[in-house]
Each structure stands twice: as C-alpha cells, then as structure tokens.
C-alpha cells in the first residue's frame, strides 16, 4: 500500500487533506505523512463552508461544541443574493429543504400554480432556514429535536487562521510530521514519471510514494513538474481577481452599497432591509460581485472582479469610499488581492500526484464552498485507495468523477451570471454574450419550459437545491406538473397558509443571534 505520503501547500486545502489522511491512515502501521508548509497562514481571514462541514468533522471525530470554542466562527444559514436576475432580486438561498412533496408532487409545482394568483409568493417562504435567517434567529438543532421545522441545515463561517491551526494540531496529534520549508527541487523517476523526492529549503529531502499538490493555482508539482495543463473556464466564471477587505468592527446592521460606480444596480433601500449576520450577502456590482462574510470581531468583504474591467486601485478606492461613508474606525483595516483562475487541471490525478484545492481548479466558492471540494477530493481518493503503482484505471476513474463534480459546481456558480439582466456596464455586456455550457443551458431551458429538473450525474447539489436556485434567480416555469392541479385552490391556499404560519411560529420563538 501507499504508506509514505507528502502534502505540499500552505492553505486550507493542504490542512483539510492532511487531517483527512491522518484520520484515515495514521492508525495503520508504517504510515508516514508529512506536511510541507512554506508560509503558513498568518492572518485572520474569514472563509465560508458548506453544510458537509459537519459530516466532515464527524468523520474526523471532532467534538462540535469544543470546536466552536477553539475556532472563531459564526452560524451561517445560507446566502443572500441581491440584484442579479433583476434590480429587485432579493433571494435567500438556504441549505435545507423548502417544502415537502404533496401527493407525490414536488412542492415547487404548487408555487408555480399559485403564483398565477399571488405573484409575490416565493418558495423561500417555505424554507424554515430562510425565514429564520432573515429574522436573525437561530438555534442549532439537537439530536432530540423532533419537529421537522427545527432541522434547519446550517454551516459555519470560520476564521481561516484558527481553522488551519486547529486542523494542523489535529494532524500533529495523530502523528503527522509538519515541516516548515519550501520545496526547492522535485526529483522525478525517468521511467514512469512518478515523483520520488522533494528537496527542501532547509537542506533536507523527503521521499514519498504519493504526493498531494495543495500548492495553490501554481500547482508546483502537478502543473509545473508533471506539466499537466490547466483548462480555463474564465468565460463561464468571469473573474480573475478577488480583493479581500477586512474591517474589525462589523455591526450587525452594516449597510452595504453595491457598485463601484454611480450606476447603482440596487437601490439603497432594498439593500438595507433584512440581511443578517446569519447570511453571507452576495451582491452583483458593475464589474463583478461582492460577497460579505462575518465572524465575531471580523468582517470580510470579498470583491470578485475581472482585471480587464476594473483595476485593483479602482476596487480599493471604492472600498475606502464605502468605509468612510460608514464612518467606521480604521483599526485593523487591511486588504489582500488574490489572483483567481477559474478552470480545472486536465488531470486531477497524474502518476503518483493528486491536486487538491486551487491546484486542482477553481470553480467558485459561493453556493458550494471550495472547502467542500477539498474534502470531497480526499475522501474520493481514499475510496479508490491505490497501491504504490497507482493503477492508471484508478486515476481515470478519479478524474472522470471529479470532472463531473467540477462541471456541476461550475454550472451552479455560472447560473447567477447567466441570469443577470442588467447590461449597463461593459463587463455585464460581455457576460451577456457568453455561450454557456450546454449542461447549464439545457437545465435552465428545461426548467423554464416545464418546471422539471434535468438529471445529471455527479450532483453536489440536491435536486431541491437546484430548484430553489433556479426559482431564486427568477426563472419562472411556464408549466407545472399537471397533478398539482388535483388539489382544489381553496385547500391548497389554506395548506400553504398553515405551513407559513407554522414556520413563522417556530421561528418567532428562536433566539436572536447577535454578531
């Protein structure tokens, strides 16, 4: 079996990889795992996660309560999208279910039916998670809670620095070795292209049988040394920069403006209503979009933009402008610009090297978090656990399934761009010209025409989540399931009213979460 493993990289994906491997393998005899970090995360930063975080922690055997005391975090019940599909769009995307089937017919068909009478009706009203999040109320479900309403699916925003330290300590406790050094040379076997040895900046070297490349978009091992090409998806995910701006004193009711320029896509009134620290706000802007994340004591605003349409300076000065408008203290303000390369590595696994994180690709970090893709990658590799020869069919299978996952996540992150209607700026005019992936246009068209969801393999989102997203981005089906007409209008309306009341009553008694 593969018993000597080296992981190269500094960021979260390297630590997710290391912790997962530590859990899965360190109990076996003769296993040696080494993490090589050159420049570990030093600053506090906020990351979002997906609800699979809890499964992942359960897999690692982490006590949830204890975790929350060690890693600075806040509850997150979903995303709040604004100004994408229309200036008025104001959609809370919750992680959980919105409405159960009635008489074997999916709930959303009834919404489509009722919308003809009540144009303001939204699927979101039937999601306990969305209703609670908008009111800033939440209580994490417990094992004992019986009511289906109480099963609100949530995840956490995390302090990246804390989380990295936590995972590193976890791995260390399991016996993983951590080396602080950078890789200066990679020695590859001439016969089969397998990596054998890494020479390090501290003068030592490391031999291993398998290598994880978590070195970021540069992909030092898989990209540079093994020359696996990178395929760009920048046309579908049109951004190549992210500027993170931090403020140390976020109030819960921080008002958020939406554009870089004066052509405001979203009115100030709509922006000030109804967002809370339980939601990560995702607002469309003239040259991209902005995502806002909180944890106690730290607010991070991430600006996603394309360097062809906005310079770093322009973005930064806009950010400064917002801050001075808000008259916030300048303490601890800092910014960081990160280059993004939407796309994927043509082989995620080549020879004896597997890429995780940005080395494998970047397909967005909003609806599905990048952390989720890292967890999923390592667990998939473990399911196909290779011996030292890394049979080529295992690699083929891994690459096949991973590409399905990446395409799926790409599609869900491209959806907001596809739905954007405003083309008052040159950036959005260009977006309007994009030829979207066939899988996405097929899905959108089928839903618009019929109200049904196309099936694709490799789903990271449940069908219900896709439906919520499509409706949230104002794709209104022309038809609904004929069986949704079987219930009389009167019965249906009273059923819906009861449901909304039950959710409202439940949410009302939840505690308000303060940030």
């Amino acid at each position, binding site marked *: 079996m593969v018993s000597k493993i080296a992981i190269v990289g500094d960021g979260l994906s390297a630590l997710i990889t290391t912790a997962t491997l530590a859990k899965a*393998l360190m109990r076996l005899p003769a296993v040696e795992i080494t993490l090589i970090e050159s420049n570990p995360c030093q600053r506090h930063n906020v990351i979002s996660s997906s609800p699979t975080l809890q499964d992942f922690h359960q897999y690692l055997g982490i006590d949830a309560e204890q975790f929350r005391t060690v890693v600075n975090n806040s509850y997150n019940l979903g995303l709040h999208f604004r100004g994408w599909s229309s200036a008025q769009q104001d959609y809370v995307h919750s992680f959980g279910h919105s409405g159960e089937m009635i008489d074997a017919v999916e709930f959303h068909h009834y919404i489509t039916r009722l919308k003809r009478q009540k144009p303001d009706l939204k699927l979101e009203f039937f999601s306990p998670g969305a209703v609670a999040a908008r009111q800033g109320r939440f209580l994490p479900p417990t094992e004992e809670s019986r009511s289906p309403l109480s099963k609100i699916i949530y995840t956490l925003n995390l302090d990246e620095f804390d989380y990295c330290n936590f995972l590193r300590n976890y791995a260390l406790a399991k016996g993983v070795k951590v080396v602080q050094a950078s890789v200066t040379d990679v020695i590859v076997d001439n016969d089969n292209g397998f990596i054998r040895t890494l020479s390090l900046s501290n003068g030592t070297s490391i031999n291993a049988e398998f290598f994880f490349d978590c070195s970021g978009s540069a992909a030092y091992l898989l990209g540079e040394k093994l020359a696996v090409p990178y395929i760009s998806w920048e046309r579908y995910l049109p951004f190549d920069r992210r500027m993170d701006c931090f403020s140390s004193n976020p109030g819960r009711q921080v008002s958020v403006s939406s554009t870089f320029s004066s052509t405001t896509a979203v009115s100030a009134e709509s922006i000030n209503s109804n967002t809370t620290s339980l939601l990560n706000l995702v607002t469309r802007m003239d040259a991209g979009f902005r995502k806002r994340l909180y944890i106690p004591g730290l607010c991070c605003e991430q600006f996603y933009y394309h360097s062809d349409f906005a310079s770093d300076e322009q973005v930064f000065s806009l950010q400064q402008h917002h801050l001075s408008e808000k008259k916030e203290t300048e303490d601890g303000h800092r910014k960081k610009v990160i280059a993004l390369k939407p796309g994927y590595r043509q082989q995620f696994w080549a020879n004896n090297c597997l890429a995780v994180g940005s080395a494998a690709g970047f397909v967005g970090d909003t609806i599905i978090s990048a952390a989720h893709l890292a967890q999923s990658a390592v667990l998939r590799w473990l399911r196909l656990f290779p011996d030292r020869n890394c049979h080529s069919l295992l690699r083929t299978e891994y690459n096949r399934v991973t590409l399905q996952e990446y395409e799926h996540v790409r599609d869900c992150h491209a959806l907001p761009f596809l739905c954007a209607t405003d083309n008052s700026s040159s950036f959005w005019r260009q977006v309007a010209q994009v030829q979207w992936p066939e899988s996405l246009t097929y899905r959108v068209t089928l839903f618009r025409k019929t109200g049904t969801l196309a099936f694709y393999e490799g789903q990271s989102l449940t069908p219900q989540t896709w439906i919520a997203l499509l409706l949230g981005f104002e794709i209104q089906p022309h038809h609904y399931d004929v069986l949704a007409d079987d219930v009389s209008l009167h019965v249906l309306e009273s059923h819906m009213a009861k449901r909304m009341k039950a959710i409202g009553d439940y949410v009302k008694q939840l505690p308000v979460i303060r940030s």
Partner: protein
Amino acid sequence: MPEGNIVNIVILGGGSAGWMTAAALSQLLKKRNCHITLIESERIGTVGVGEATLPHLRFFNQRLGIAEAEFMHRTQATYKLGIEFVNWGGAQGQAYIHPFGDYGLRFNDISFHHYWLKLRRTGATAPIGDYSLPVVAAKLNRFQYPSTNSRSILSSYSYAYHVDASLYAQYLREYACARGVVHCIGEVTHVHQHPDNGFIETLTLNDGRNINGDLFIDCSGFRGLLIEQTLKAGYEDWSRYLPCDRAVAVPSPVLRQAPPYTRATTSLAGWRWRIPLRHRTGNGHVYCSAYLSDDEALQLLLTNLNGEAMAEPLFLRFNTGRRKSMWLKNCVAIGLSAGFLEPLESTGIHLIQLAIMKLIEYFPNSVMESAYSTEFNRSMNMEIERIKDFLVLHYYACEENCGVNTPNSHGSTLNPQTKESPFWQYCHNLTLEDRLRHKIDLFSATGHVVNYMEGLFLEPSWIAVYLGQGLLPHSYDSRLDCCNQAQLQAQMRALHQSIANAAASMPLHRQILLSETDEGHRHGE
C-alpha cells in the same frame, strides 16, 4: 395549435405495458377528466409464462393503491429475493444468487468485498453469498418481510415478486375499466396524421370505428405500430452485444419447495429461466437463432422441465435494442415498442413502470412542448444504457464452454462430442463498448466498482455478477494488508454466523404462501 389540456388518450395494445399504463393513468390523472381508450386486438389464448419483477413494482402498486395481499392472490404471485444464475462462470456447475440486498457491512469506509477478497487469498472464507442474508435465505427457501428497523440485520434486503403476467394484466384491466378506461377490441387498419406536423390524430379500426386522440401510447409490442410503422422513429440494434433473438416458453407444475428466487441457467446458445408461481412454474429458453434451431431450443427446454409441460410451447422473436425516440410527436412508446432488453435481470416490467412514471411527471398539454419529450428520451436512454451494460457483463464474463456441460444432456443429441459452444465463444470474445470496458477493467485490476447515483443496478449488483462469475480482481484495497488477520477472520466468522442464524429463523416461503392462500380463501368466503 391553441394550448389546451390533453383530453383523449389512446393506448394501443393490451399486454402488461398497455394495462399498466391504462391503470396508472386512470388513477393518477383521474381529476383531469381525460378519456382513456385502450385498443386491443383479439388474442389467441396467452400462455401464463410468469414474469419476474424487481422490488420497484411494490411502489407502483402502492401508488395505485393496490393492496399487496390482493395483488398476491390475484396474480398467483410468489416472493422473490433474487435471481440464481446457474453455470454462468466460475467453476462448472456452480451457481450464484444476485440478491436484492447487500453483502456484509462497510467497515472503516472500505466496502465489504475487499475484506472478502483479502481473506479469500488465505483460503479462509466462505462464498461471498454466505455474507448476504437474502442469498442465504433464498437457498433455504425461506422468506420474511424485511424489518423496518434499520439496525436489524433483517433490514439488509428488499424483495420483489414472481407474477403471472397475464393475470396481472387482467387484474389491471378490471382496475382500469372500473376507473373509466374504455376497452376497445379491434385491429388498427389506418393511422391518420396531421398533414402539417405529422401528429397522430385518429386510428381507424377494422370495424370502421374511428378513435381520436391527443396523446397516443404505443404498447403494440416489438413492431411498434405507431412509433415505428407510422412515425419511423428508428431502432438502434444491440444484437451485436446481446445476440439472443428468440425465446420459447412453456409452463410446468408447481415447485413444491417454492424457491423464493428466479433461476437462470445457461444453455448451449442462451439461457433458460424458471419462475416459480403459486399455480405453476413458468419456464422459458432465450436463445440465439444463429446458433440453435427452434426445435433444438424447445427440446433443451422440455428435457429440463420439472415435470410435464402444461401447455403448448409459445415461441417469441425479438431484436435487442432500443427505439431511437421513445417519445416522438404525440406518441410515447412504452414496453416492447420502446425497445427490448432480454429478461435476464427481470427489467421488462420495471422499464414499463419507469416510462409511465416519467410520462406522468412530464405530462404535456396539447402543444406537446418538445422539452418534455427530449428529457423523457434522454433520461430513459440513460437508464436503458446502464441496464444494457449490466446485461452484457453476464454474457461477457461467462466462460467459453459454460453452456456445454450443463446437466441437460440426458437424451440430448446436441454436439455431444464437442466441448465448445460457438455462441459462448462469441460472447466471451466480444469487443466491449468503452463504458463497460472501463467498468470491467477497473474492477479486474483494483476491485473498485464504478458507481453512479441513478440507475437500477448499483454496487452490490455488480459485485454479485463479477464475483459470481469468477471475475476476481487482481487486487483489493491495499490498506487491508495492514489489518490484523486473525481479528478479521473472527469478524467474518461472526458475521457469517449471524446471517446463518437470521436466515434459519425465517419461515419457509412455502408456508408463507400457504397461510396467505388460507387467508385469501377466508376473505373470499
């Protein structure tokens, strides 16, 4: 055309497909005020050959509100825990059961079969079937409803039925007619299409009647009277991969031990089925006419019956493949008109059921928005292609002489000198399509099963056939080399024992059927 509701639905054909469709539409669309007409040509008495089903049929019946006890009683049904494959590979004379259930338990995130493969190398393990409760129970002719307690070992399996398909069709006919379906006997002599768009408008029958429809369901069997003969949807031929093209069926007396499983035994150029019903046994021989004559096929079937034939043999001809568009214009093909995969894994009724449920999910209005038919065809194709792969695996993974030495030779004059079967050589040497090639190669090399989320046959099914037919992987998950061997063996023994105990505690299938029959009689009085 103005957008309006579908009012007139015409179903052409009255077999299982036709009556299942009529029954489901009459119940599920009952508030739509549709007029449903089923046209059936007069039949020359059908032979009750029996049909094996998959567990999904239970959900179909549930959706229609059909009580299980009544269904069992009316269709002379028995319970089914899986299919026994006899002489399909491995050692000669060997058999394996493909169960409706799992093997063993997943442990440390590694599938059970890796543990089994590991221990097999040391010789210290029983056949993999011994670690599957439905397999062990089936071999003992025992049956019990699965437990709903997910922690109980009795929840590790599912079940289906063997039914008399013509009784099922008859039962559904009563059901459908009671819900307003008009049953019309006649032959279609002419199909009228809309001159512009080619939509089917009217069927003229041999007695001169005209039947109008907005939506036509073609259940007319292989010939596809509407979908093919009228609309020319085209047929994708799969006989290269699934070369059997004939079947002969004959009923025989009841099997006293009431096996709760279907049996499929290889023959010289195909395979024979045995389906145990309450009132008789369904038998059939699926074969390839290029390698076996009808007479030879019948003889092989008759010499292997468990008693006298109870009726004249019924011969069937078919051509494996699929209709290129199962839904075209305002016509949906359901059943054999949509395509034919041979009955080796009892998928016939399941594909009918799947098509009906998809049709209801995508039920159109009179405009016939093509997005519905596109998605219907796309998703049906995906299902059927995956089933095809699984079926081809059975043939491919067979040994070159697997049909030859079967215990069918008493009195048989078929090539007694030769030890070879050209048919099985053909199958064994087949050049596979890439998708299946990848699945088989991955498993052979590493023991890993290609997984997908949707589809009928998931990991345990593939493992059943791979291992059952002796396709043993060259390796297993290498982490198991680090496990404590003695501990592993002890765990396996304990599992083996607990499954054996659970199976032995189940009642005999025969007794279950008897007690139900008694109850049926009481209710009938």
